[in-house]
């Protein structure tokens, strides 16, 4: 029986999972929409992974979680490693491209840049409050143009002269886009212009003041859009590497971390049949009134968080 290591990356838009073997090869992977319910998404993800590994005589011995729902999912899966997505993605990318210096990552709601020197992270930046120039920006603009975000790339690379679109803010971009369409710009030029504006936005906001050095790896859901990849290459003047598992590096990285944690115990896929529930309660014990999240497994509380002080600690009853 072979040992396997599971990495789960639960993002705002999509949920990703990989199982690797002891030689760090990806044996099974899956990708689906989170749709605002990380617990349901992870259950579905594990069902799919179980089907894909059924005939491979595999025993999952360690689990790692990352992404914005890492704590919730990590608690439910009883994960050995719960790691932030920046570290996880850097570890995953370094395994695929050991020589990488700069990582661009654009996901559903966040975008980040990670700088690497001699195989270690030296600096990073993330978008803060604004989601302009991320995947959700592109998909909402796609809707406005009446097309699927998946077709965006094909249209964009047809363009010879991308339209200039004000992309500082989604609201302005949208009105500018309508205006440009109404005065007669071609659809492919507008789409290429949008891809370009995503890149400019990224380099001016997240990449501001950072020393971008090749080799550059581009990943996250938006890296599947060849229009954005081309725009990155045009603007930086460098080759942009995109791996076929580029959307999975977070999950891959955290699987590697789970493997390195050296704390192996058999993972029970029976989890998909258990009943999980979360409840939010208001503490009411002091003016802070913290919102505490309690996680229940088969109606028994297994963990809670959100309290600022010990007054709000929920007893495990």
């Amino acid at each position: 029986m072979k040992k396997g290591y599971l990495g789960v990356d639960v993002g705002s838009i999509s949920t990703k999972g990989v199982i690797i073997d002891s030689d760090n090869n990806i044996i099974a992977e899956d990708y689906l929409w989170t749709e605002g319910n990380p617990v349901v998404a992870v259950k579905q993800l594990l069902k799919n992974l179980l089907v894909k590994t059924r005939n491979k005589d595999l025993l999952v011995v360690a689990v790692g979680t990352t992404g914005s729902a890492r704590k919730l999912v990590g608690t439910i899966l009883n994960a050995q490693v719960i790691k932030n997505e920046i570290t996880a993605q850097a570890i995953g990318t370094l395994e695929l491209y050991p020589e990488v210096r700069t990582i661009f990552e654009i996901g559903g709601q966040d975008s980040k840049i990670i700088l690497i020197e001699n195989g270690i992270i030296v600096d990073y930046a993330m978008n803060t409050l604004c989601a302009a120039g991320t995947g959700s920006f592109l998909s909402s603009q796609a809707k406005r143009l009446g097309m699927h975000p998946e077709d965006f790339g094909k249209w964009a690379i047809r363009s010879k002269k991308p339209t200039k679109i004000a992309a500082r803010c989604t609201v302005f971009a949208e009105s500018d886009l309508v205006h440009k369409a109404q005065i007669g710009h071609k659809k492919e030029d507008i789409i290429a212009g949008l891809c370009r504006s995503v890149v400019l936005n990224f380099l001016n906001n997240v990449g501001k003041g950072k020393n971008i050095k090749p080799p550059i790896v581009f990943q996250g859901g938006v890296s599947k859009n060849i229009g954005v990849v081309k725009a990155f290459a045009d603007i930086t003047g460098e080759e942009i590497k995109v791996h076929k598992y580029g959307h999975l590096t977070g999950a891959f990285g955290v699987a590697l971390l789970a493997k390195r944690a050296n704390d192996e115990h058999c993972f029970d896929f029976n989890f998909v049949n258990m009943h999980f529930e979360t409840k939010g309660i208001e503490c009411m014990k002091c003016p802070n009134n913290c919102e505490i999240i309690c996680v229940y497994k088969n109606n028994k509380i297994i963990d809670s968080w959100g309290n600022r002080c010990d007054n709000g600690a929920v007893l495990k009853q």
Partner: protein
Amino acid sequence: MAKLDIIGIPRALLYYKYRYLWECFFKELGCHILLSPETNKEIMDQGINHSIDESCLSAKIYMGHIYAIINQVDYIFVPRFCNFARQETVCTKFNALYDIVRNTFPHKEVLHYNVDVLKRNGELKGFIKMGLALKKNFFLIVKAYIKAKLKQKHHDKLAHKQQADLINNESCLKMLIVAHPYNRYDKLVGFPIIKYLMENNIMPVYADIVDHKVARQRSLNISKTLHWTYSKELIGAIDYYQDKIDGIIFISTFPCGPDSLVNELCLRKIKYVPMLNLVLDELQGEAGLHTRLESFIDIIKIRKNKQEAVS
């Protein structure tokens, strides 16, 4: 015997810098002090209600502290700071605070002292005026001021010595916290960050605990043109502690004017150490904060391990 005057001191902004001076002075004059409680969500919400939107979060919290105690005191204590010398000014917030409080809460008498050295209003003169307003004896006032001033100095020195001892004796990772005292001590603003660091076995080194005179001098190594005294003291501390720390975290509150300039300046000029800039506002979610802190700590730990492996 006449009833003791109750003086309300808001536990916010410059309280954290001058607490011993203020508390000792009023106690020596025989006044009773009521200190507002630690910041909580209710105080912050009331502060937001009693401020204009453009105020910085720290100033909004200050207004909340005043609201929390204003009906239980005879005087509310709000000093005015303008400058300490030429090219030694403070954020305009501290110039305006006295007037803002007086106009927001017009029914309460505001006790104040004015530090505007360029207009010949020094600290001693301000304290004497304030003591006389409380109808105290002139000599008692001067005596109280001197005692309070010495006490403040003693505590500043003590804190500096304790921090220096900790830096020398502890072998764990050390993070310099560059933040105004009113941000880093605040229960809602700075405390969750400090707590998170300590839970992860990282020792916070505070940039505000330093010999201020030395720090103002050393700030010239980073910038020669700054004129905010409190900012000079903070960035001078970066230069002072530079070879003893593994990383720097800047904490500021949105939309702080001086910090937005000074922190950006440091981020561009300082090259030898990893830095993280955290700007907090009233909408801050803890999740984003933890992701940033956690990954920053990872970077520092990996870097440290590599360095040790090489040497």
